[in-house]
């Protein structure tokens, strides 16, 4: 009798496995579609884009929260008049400042802009986090968002690089972007400016730049893989 039960259970497990394992999911699309079948690859690229966009949205949310918390904590008397025009260290990167401008920009250029922005923020955020470690109360108050932020920027850059590689593999993107992949290329020019910025300005600038990255990614996605969600 036990033998019967065991064999029955093995058979049922095998059947279940067949049923469920045979259903293709979008996550498994990549290993299944090794040959360039258009439908297959586009699906996984959209998935990658979605993930990257979600990540950037989260990152922007955190930077927004951190900015307001910083204001609340250190500058309670927020003064509109006293606002000086920001000189972010990324202002030398030319970014499209409108929908049309972003749409008119070539894909490669737009991708480059995204990557440049992400690379430019890696060190400043890390140093910001280091400087914040002295303010234990603020870290508790902001539940260590500065660390999360600096991690996220790093992750997002890697994610965007993956998307770019995928696009290059599919032939959607030309290979001119690859020369800019290495972060050292970015950091060579004028990278020390951020050290002159104060913490508050840094936060403001990053809040803006993270919003830029999020929007550019969305525009890029809806241009390349216009599916639901656009």
């Amino acid at each position, binding site marked *: 009798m036990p033998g019967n039960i065991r064999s029955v259970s093995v058979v049922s497990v095998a059947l279940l496995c067949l049923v469920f394992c045979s259903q293709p999911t979008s996550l498994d699309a990549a290993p299944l579609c090794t040959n360039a079948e258009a439908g297959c690859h586009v699906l996984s690229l959209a998935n990658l884009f979605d993930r990257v966009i979600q990540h950037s949205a989260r990152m922007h949310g955190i930077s927004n929260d951190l900015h307001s918390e910083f204001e609340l904590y250190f500058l309670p008397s927020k003064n*509109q008049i006293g606002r000086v025009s*920001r000189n972010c260290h990324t202002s030398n990167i030319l970014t499209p*400042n*409108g929908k049309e401008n972003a749409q008119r920009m070539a894909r490669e250029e737009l991708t480059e802009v995204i990557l440049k922005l992400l690379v430019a923020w890696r060190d400043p955020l890390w140093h910001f986090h280091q400087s914040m470690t002295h303010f234990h109360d603020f870290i508790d108050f902001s539940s260590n968002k500065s660390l999360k932020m600096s991690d996220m920027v790093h992750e997002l850059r890697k994610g965007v690089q993956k998307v770019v590689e995928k696009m290059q593999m599919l032939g959607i993107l030309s290979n001119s972007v690859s020369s800019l992949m290495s972060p050292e290329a970015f950091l060579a020019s004028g990278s020390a400016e951020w050290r002159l910025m104060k913490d508050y300005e840094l936060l403001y600038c990053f809040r803006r730049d993270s919003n830029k990255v999020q929007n550019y990614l*969305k525009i890029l996605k809806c*241009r390349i893989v216009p599916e639901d*969600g656009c």
Partner: protein
Amino acid sequence: MVCARMVKHLRLPLLLLLLALAAECNSMSKPGKPDKLGCRSPDKETFFCWWTPGSGGGLPTVHRLYYKTEGRETVRQCPDYHTAHSCFFSKTYTSIWVEYTVIVEASNALGNTSSDPLTFDLMDIVKPYAPENVTLVVSIGDNPHLTIQWHTPSNIDTKSGWVTLKNQLRIKLEKSKIWKNYTSDTQTHFTIYNIELGVVYMVEVRCAIDNSAWSEWTNTTFVKVPNFPRTDNSFWILVFSLSLIPLLVAMIILILKRKTVKKYILPPVPGPKIRGVDVQLLKSGRSEDVINAMLLNQRFPVVMPWKDQNEDYLIVSDKETSYLPLEKNKIFILPVAITLDSEVQSKETSEVDRFLKDSESSSEESSEKTKSSQLLTKCPSTNVLNDEKANQLKGVTEKIIQPFGISGYVDIPRHEHTQEADYSRVNEVNSDNILITKKENVPHTLDTQGQEGGVLDDYSRVKEVNSDNTVFLEKHSDSVNASIRAKGYIDWVNQKAKSPHVTGHSEMGVCPQLVGCGYVDTFPPPAVI
């Protein structure tokens, strides 16, 4: 005289006062400060600003809006004064992620008055218009539900990915004061289940772009949910109540006739009955009748007299060839104390198991060879030892006693009594559990026909069994005591159910229950072991 001097002194200030009053009455002055400057972008691509003009001035006032963008020092004027006291910035003049500084200046003939400047980034002032065309559909059926649909504001472009909308709706009963909120991410429809019937619902919708501020709520939309038609219910109620009547009738019948029903469903089980015995007779208690009933009318199975069978045996096994004995009835059952069993088993379980296997396998073989051999199994704790053809060792037959758990005896085929029994009298048992028997002719009397006395003669009383499971026998006939009540004798597995035996057994007091299993009487445990 004094009055005239006073008037002279007061003339100048009075004049000034009059002039001031005159000026006030005319309200001709610089314009009032424009106030409540606000800007808003309903679609993240354009924006507009508004203000409320300040009061006063009296003279015709012109309001101008000036703005400055971050990075450029030039001050520019509003590109389009859309409506009164507002300024519209089209796409060409709108840049996001750029700080604007806006100021409104009111000027008239007498001067200018500027408002407080307003600094903002476009992404901070995004606030869409309310959604449009809210429609409500009530669907009744098995699952009454309410479907709400709406459109995004017409000015928003949702295809390019520049804008991500999320929606929120709220609903309440007309009578209630509490709204219930639901979020509907990017979908422009929503379904609410479990709605009440026969009430009026109020619904409002609003939306937001990315994480911007929420729009205003739409105008309230009302919807009335009709009642279910009652006829359906009443029909089913009628059917239900009608079907109850036969049910009740059936119940009543069942209760009235419960006895017959019970007999039908649960037929009575006949009680136990002994053939030929009348229960009533027994109850009446007359002993003669009882005895007659019990004894005379019964048919007892024929009992073969045990003495016809060779059951005087000691089963001793030979370790090497563990088969049952072939033709020779050299089967002896060596009595071992029951309490030995546990010791034995614990000590030599492996051997026992092996032996058990052997004995079981061999039992099959032996059954072919010796037809009437049977192995009674499952007799608790009697050591039965299978004998082999003795391994002849210098004229001494060694038999190795292998105790094992399964008891049993081997029924050996009956041999002619004339056959010289190859019994060996156990001479002694040495320390290795070896029974050393003398090869001498044992008189027939050992055979089954022997009387008790004869049989008894050849019994040896076991002197003791030591911890090595060796049996020491007393070697004289003193042991032979006519009284079988002597403890510690090797009782052959003599299935003679003779009463002395029986009594003897009962007096042993040790394992009387094993009588039927073919055991050998045991020693009084405490004394020996």
